[in-house]
């Protein structure tokens, strides 16, 4: 009896490691890729010293950061200060529990997968808010306030986009959402929603052009100004892991997850996990491309875009989609 529990526990731990370790390694290479792509955009060379083509640069940086002294400001609220990066990191990894990489390749195939992802991504704001408040310093506090308002605003439109997709699927299970796209990926019939989701994902992960919580030119480094060493690494890893998570969410909702673009011979022998990875890399490239080409938004413009453009438009699209589905009797189930 207890032996069974032990075996089940070990299997669960092995499954978690099988997801988390590749995610962390891909974070390291994402940072490298970002620096390389930005360098190409800006006609520079980028990292090219550590390892062949500088490919080991991220590992060198991580090692350097971890060996530095971890400074906790004397005026800070110590427990919350230490907890904040841990929460950010844990939350950015927790979402991976429900991501289906290929048919059956999922740690936990729950009924409300998309709601779980939405919940986890909406919790991400706590790490930032706690860091900003516990630092007891002006710049981090301003960064935290900006980020709280920003993430709450853009979650609203993300919620409506998810509802539109769910109307076409009829289930909250992520594998079923992917399987519903066998005839056509949702990015084609729901193209405006795909664009809104992508832009909201940029805002939700605090990426440029919406990286106002860590706006260098006005807030030093925003909410993690006071962080150093290992706690800074945790924030950094968390931010990039949640970036990959949001990209996977985009791929599952709009680009057909593990499905090949066309169900024809040479394409459908390629394993699903490869298609999934390729699509996630494509979305991540878009993230970096946007960072390299667009200037940062002003804060009031950001709020205007979220509440006055995306919210009415996505609300209208929810009504339009449901009206269309009811009128043509195309509702699932």
């Amino acid at each position: 009896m207890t032996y069974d529990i032990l075996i089940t526990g070990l299997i669960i731990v092995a499954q978690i490691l099988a997801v988390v370790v590749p995610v962390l390694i891909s974070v390291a290479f994402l940072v490298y890729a970002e620096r390389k792509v930005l360098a190409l955009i800006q006609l520079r060379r980028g990292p090219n010293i550590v390892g062949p083509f500088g490919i080991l640069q991220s590992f060198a940086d991580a090692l350097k950061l971890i060996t530095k002294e971890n400074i906790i400001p004397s005026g800070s609220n110590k427990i919350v200060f230490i907890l904040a990066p841990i929460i950010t990191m844990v939350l950015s990894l927790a979402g991976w529990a429900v991501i289906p990489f290929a048919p059956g390749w999922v740690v936990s195939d729950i009924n409300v997968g998309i709601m779980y992802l939405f919940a986890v991504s909406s919790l991400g704001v706590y790490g930032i808010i706690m860091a900003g408040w516990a630092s007891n310093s002006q710049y981090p506090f301003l960064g935290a306030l900006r980020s709280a308002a920003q993430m709450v605003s853009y979650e609203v439109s993300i919620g409506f986009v998810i509802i539109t997709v769910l109307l076409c699927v009829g289930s909250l299970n992520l594998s079923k959402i992917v399987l519903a796209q066998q005839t056509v990926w949702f990015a084609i019939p729901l193209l405006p929603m795909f664009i809104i989701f992508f832009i909201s994902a940029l805002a939700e992960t605090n990426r440029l052009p919406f990286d106002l919580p860590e706006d260098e030119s006005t807030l030093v480094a925003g909410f993690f100004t006071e962080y150093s060493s290992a706690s800074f690494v945790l924030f950094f890893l968390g931010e990039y892991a949640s970036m990959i998570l949001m990209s996977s969410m985009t791929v599952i909702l709009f680009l057909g997850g593990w499905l090949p673009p066309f169900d024809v011979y040479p394409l459908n022998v390629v394993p699903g996990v490869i298609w999934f990875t390729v699509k996630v890399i494509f979305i991540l490239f878009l993230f970096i491309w946007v960072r390299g080409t667009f200037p940062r938004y002003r804060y009031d413009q950001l709020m205007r875009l979220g509440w006055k453009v995306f919210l009415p438009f996505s609300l209208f699209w929810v009504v339009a989609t449901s009206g269309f589905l009811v009128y043509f009797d195309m509702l699932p189930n």
Partner: protein
Amino acid sequence: MVLYSLTFYLFSSVAVLSALMVISAKNPVHSVLFLILSFVNASGLFVLLGAEFLAMILVVVYVGAVAVLFLFVVMMLDINFVKLREGFLQYLPFGALLGIVLVIELGILFLTDRSSNIYNNQTPLQPIVNEVENTKMIGQILYTEYFYLFQICGIILLVAMIGSITLTLRDKGGVKRQNIASQNTVNASTAIEKKKVKIGEGI
């Protein structure tokens, strides 16, 4: 079964302890953080009951949105909780009365026939596996049997929303507003004026 009981006791004890910390913590921000912990544990209990949709809604709505704004306000305002606690003994009898009423109500609920069936079955605490997802079940009952009540709830929320907007909306004079459409239509002919300046006179 052992695992489910263990997780139940973990979630419920953390929920109760953090609820206690909400009212006893000295720092108001710590109170809100404990409140959030309590919410998360409550949603864990929902998952154990097989009500996964309610669990996720609890996290999304209360933890993800309401508590963030709450934390926002508590962080911005300088609330002196020591001063708020001064009347603690004065309000104690009233609070105790409320607690006793709640306990009696729960007791009545336990003793009625409808609930006794549930508790006498000795069903172990574990997710109930249904053919129909509970998201679908909630939808089916909410939009048929409780349709009018659901609509009334929506209207109450709308009234509250309009009320809060009218409370905060003040027309201050002297505020320069940005008209994005007119800014975007600016071109060289509307933005630049050419003037011939006579030498030695200026404009």
